[in-house]
Structure formats: structure tokens, C-alpha cells
């Protein structure tokens, strides 16, 4: 929490205009926006936390749960879309039983949807903790997930 305080102190003028930069700053430092941090930002900027949550969910970039041990980014750019990334996402959500933006209960995996990550040749593509996996199919996806699960044991 002290962390959040330090971040807020950087923004001398507590004005609503600073809301997005503050949220970005917090996410960068904490990895996500916790309830506590949102409430704290609210009391600093004199904004109800429902408003802040409303603004933050308007953008895709904010997450509200800590990242999992293995953070999966799935590309939903045009090339990946054309080659079926929608199905990949569906499959991923089904296998992990979470929605994009969420983290599995055991804290192992988190899913983030990103716009084009510039690897169109590999479409449809996902990354796990920065490592790229190309031409994903439901089967290869399952293998990748199993692989990481095993690594953990």
C-alpha cells in the first residue's frame, strides 16, 4: 500500500485528468489494479471507486487480478483473427476455466487479450511469459498448457 501512496505522491495536482496515468503507473508497479488501490486513488482524486472501475474497464489494458505465474497473452490482431484466434481464445478460456483478464484460482495462469503483437507470420499466436508459440490449434494449446502445469510440479 505504501507503494500506491508513493505513486500518488508523484501526481502533485490531484486532478481527474491524471486518472489514466495514475492507473497505468499502478498497474506497471503492482501488475494489476487491486480494490484497495482503486479505493485509494478514489479518495486521492475525490472520485467514487465505481467511476474509476468504469473508466478502467472501458480500456482493455487494465487487469483487476494479479497475474498468474504463467501469463498468457493471446493475439487478437487482424491476421490472427483471420486464422481463427477467436476459437483459440474460446478454447483457452474453456481449458483454464477463466475469462480473458482473469487468473486461475490456483494462481498458475492468467489470460490477457492483446491487439497485434507483430508476429503475423506465426498466426494465430500466443505468448507465455514472453515466449512465443506459433500456429496454435486446440490440440497444441492443450499440450502447451499441460507442459507448463508439469513444469510446476
Amino acid at each position, binding site marked *: 500500500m505504501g507503494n500506491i501512496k508513493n505513486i500518488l505522491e508523484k501526481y502533485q495536482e490531484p486532478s481527474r485528468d491524471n486518472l489514466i496515468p495514475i492507473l497505468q503507473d499502478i498497474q506497471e508497479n503492482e501488475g494489476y489494479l487491486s480494490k484497495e488501490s482503486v479505493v485509494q486513488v478514489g479518495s486521492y482524486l475525490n472520485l*467514487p471507486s*465505481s*467511476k474509476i*472501475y*468504469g473508466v478502467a474497464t472501458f480500456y482493455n489494458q487494465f487487469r483487476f487480478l494479479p497475474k498468474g505465474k504463467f501469463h498468457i497473452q493471446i493475439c487478437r490482431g487482424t491476421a490472427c483473427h483471420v486464422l481463427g484466434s477467436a476459437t483459440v481464445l474460446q478454447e483457452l478460456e474453456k481449458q483454464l476455466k477463466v475469462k480473458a483478464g482473469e487468473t486461475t484460482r490456483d494462481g498458475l495462469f492468467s489470460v490477457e487479450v492483446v491487439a497485434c503483437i507483430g508476429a503475423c507470420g506465426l498466426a494465430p499466436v500466443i505468448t507465455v511469459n514472453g515466449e512465443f508459440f506459433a500456429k496454435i490449434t486446440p490440440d497444441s494449446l492443450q499440450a502447451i498448457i499441460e507442459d507448463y502445469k508439469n513444469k510446476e510440479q
Partner: protein
Amino acid sequence: MNYTININNKECSAEQGETILDVLKRNGIKVPTLCHLKESMPTGACRMCIVEDMKSGKLITSCSFPAAPGMEIKTHSQRVVEARKTIIELLLSNHPDDCLYCVRDKNCELQNLSEEHHVRERRIRGKKNKEKLDLSSASIVRDPEKCILCGRCVTICEEVMGVSCIDFINRGNKAFIGTSFNQGLNTSSCINCGQCIMVCPTGALTEKNHFAEIQSAINDQNKTVVVQYAPSISVSMSEEIGLEPGMDNNGILNAALRKVGFDFIFDSSFAADLTIMEESAELIRRITNEETLPMITSCCPGWVKYAEEFYSDLIPNLSTCKSPQQMMGAVVKTYFAEKQGINPEDIYMVAIMPCTAKKFEAQREEMVHKGISDVDAVLTTRELTKFLKLYGVDMFNIDPEVTDSPLGFRSSAGKMFGASGGVMEAAIRTAHFKLTGKELVNFTIPQVRGFEKRKETQIKISDLELGVAVVNGMANAKVLLDEIRAGRKDIQFIEIMACPGGCIGGGGQHIGTDDKQLAQRMKTLYDIDKKETLKVSHKNPEIIELYQNFLGEPLGHKSHELLHTHYQKRDVMI
């Protein structure tokens, strides 16, 4: 600067700063609106109010577009009418088709618009909304499936109530209305006022219903079912039932409730008199002993929760008196039970209230005495009507009856609780008598009456100069409370009602109440006061009897145990 604009080939006068919709309304031209809320900034969310601007050839939203000299507007051209119809069809495309099962059936703006625009077939088929109900609150039920995202609830919650516990979450076709972190309403700062229900055009917002429990209590031979109704009910139920607005339906209400099968019927105005006895004594004690001032009324459970969340530093200023609803329950289940020889556990107490927050209040843990809660179930004015219908009561063909006794008699001071300023006036009348031994001249304090957001005045009671303030609408109270926080010292007594106009404008009242009807309700309450002779709580013979036979003194030991309580800071997501 005044000018004219051309509407439907007629020159209409317009004033600087008006929107097209303002001009249309003044000239008696009706265009449909959904997201529009009077006295709020237009959001342009729904597009229902579009008109055709003949000069630019565009369809523009009349609620948000400023009128300008020389405009040429068509409100019902073929193009406009068709576009409006499409908008409605789109709204319906993902809307559940369960009008037959919906609480708002026949009083739904979406349904009305669809009828007005001759939507008689399903042209556009979308995926139906599938969302879970939020049943977490003791008062309010949210059904996101029926939400058309007009945003009125968000606006009223922020601008009129100063709460802001809900907002738009996500965007595009994933958008919905929810609380911070999309948690249940019960963990949010929602004060249960129900004003969002009052503005919702559809069945997405309703009150939590307890019909089944009440019915089974009525059918249970071993239960004595007692009902009380709030001061404002008899003057505000007309619109729901289809009687003439502004009538005092007191007598027929008693008769109707008896027909339903309630064993004893009381007017909460009696308990309002009781509240006044305690509250005026508390005020005098606080002034004499130089305790925390200003004292702030605590009859309004919306305001009490707001205080616990946003102004917990002012909790010592809250009067410790329970609200009339709770006091009524408390004396029915003790004094009355004793008198009638009924086991308090066998009494089921129903309260008919203009208010959804009363449902929350009834289930608060502070409101339980020796394991028995003061009040068991609360019905809103709207639910009352439904209940009467269920039991086949014909309100057009019924002879007036009186309430039961004791605890049935009321002064007109107690009745005034229904309007903003009423508690203040009633309390001052009794405080005046207690301090001087004389009644207040003319009894009335016109300065605290009416619909203004804030009413302040000085009252002289012998050598005591009392500064009093009355506010209605939670957001207005906030301004005053900040002044108190900042050290304002010239006010000793404050009345706060969360809803605009007080209980007559409560969140449990008829949906679609207009300003004229609201004003009529207030007038009827004050007319009752003008007409009747028992104008002060302390002269109510049944109140006097209650103190003589049971309570002893105001603020005495028994009162303390049954009629007073304490509140605490509440941790919620603000």
C-alpha cells in the same frame, strides 16, 4: 435573446440556452425520450428523441442539441418515425421477452414506446442478454438482462443522491451497469433509496419482494399479523390504484387492510408522535447539557446508511431515536403484546412504506430486541397495491374504517413526517411546549415547508435562539454536511431526508409520479394539519397513556432499551 425556430412548418419561440427538446415541450409537441432526465446534463445515450434537421439533413438528438435561430425541424417525418422504430426494435432485439412475468408490465416505457411505434413483429433478432440477477441487497434487485443502458440510474445515483455506487462497466456490446469491481450491491455504498427504480424505464430495477412470507404469516393461525402504514401512504397511493391524486385515503386503506386479513391496523404516524416525544427530549437534553450539536434526525434509513459510510465522523450528531417504523414495531411487540396477552414471538409485523431503504432498516441487527425483530416485512406503496389486488379488494367500493387502538391515534404533527420539513416542524412544536409550557403560536413554521433543496431558519423559543436546517435529496445534504464539518456553528437541529421532497417522493412510491402530483401530496398533508385540532404529538391521548402505563418518561430506561439505538462506521467500497 428570444428568437424563433421552425418546427413542423410552424414558427415556435425559443430562448437562448434551450435545447430543441425544451422548445418542443413548451410548444406541446411530444417526442419520445428514454435516457433523458430533467435537470440533468443530457447524455444522448438512447437516440429515441431524434428529430430531422431539414437544413443539414441530419437526424439529431433533440434532448442534447441546442436550439438555434433559423432552425427547421421535423419531429415526425417519415424518416424520423422509421428511425425511431428501428431504435426500439434494436433495443428489443436482446431484451428478454417476458413482459407477462415482469413487475413493470403495463408500466414500462419500453413497452409503451414499442406500442406507440407499432412494433408488432420481430424484425431484428439478436442474442438475448444472459446475466445473473443481483439479489444481494436487502432492498434493490437488479436484473441486468432487462437493462437498456439508458444510464438514468447512474445519473440519479450520482447527481441527486450523491452516492455514485453504480456506473457503466466495460464498453460496446459488453457494457453493463454495475458497482465497483462488479460486486453485489450489498457491499457497495448503495443507500437503498430506490430512486434508481423510480427512473428506470424498464423492469431492470425493482424492490426486493416479501409477498410469500407475508402471505404465509396471514395464513398461519398461530400468528397475529399486525400492519402499520407510513404517514405518506394514504396520500400517495391514489396514483397506483387509480383514485384521484392527492386524496387522503386513510379510511379506505384501513378497511382494505382488514379485508386482506391483517389482525390489527396501525398508522405509523402514531409512532411518529412517539419519535417526536423522544427526539424533542433528546434535543433539549443535548442543548442543556452542551452535548454534540447539531443534532441530525435519523428517521430516514437512506440517510443513516449514508452517514455511516460517508460521514461517520458525524455519527455522534445523529439522533439516537429509532425511526417511527421501528418504534412502532418495538411497542407493538412489547406494550401491545402484553396488553393483548399475545406472545411477542407470535406477532408478525408488516410495515407499508414509501421507501425501499425501510426494507434494509427492518433487517438491521440493531433493530432486534431480545431475539425478536421490531419489523418482519416491509411493503412499498407499489407492492401494497399489488397485494390488495391479490386479495381482491375493490378500492372503489369500500367504506372507510378506523385504525385499531391503542397505538392507533395520531396527531397531525405525526402525519406531517411524510413531507420534507415535517419532522422538524413537529419536533419544534413539542420542544416549544416542553421548554415554555406554551404552544407555538399558530403552530406552524412555514419556513421549513416546501420543496426547496435546503430550508434554513432561526426559531426563538423564549430566550433560546435555535438555528434549524431542513434538506431533502442526499446530494443537497452533502453540501450542508460539509459546511458543518468545516465548523459551521449556527445550526443546532437538522432534518435530512434522502429522497426529493421527503417520503412523499420516496423510492417505493408510484413510478411515474410527476411534480404536480408530488406537490399535491405535500399539500394534502398540510391540509390535514390545518383541518385537524390535535396538532401536537405531546397531546396525543394514546401517547400520554403509553408513557403513563408503560414507558415512563421520554429518554427513560424503557425508551432507551426499546426506542433508541446507535450506529457505527460502515466499511464499504466508496
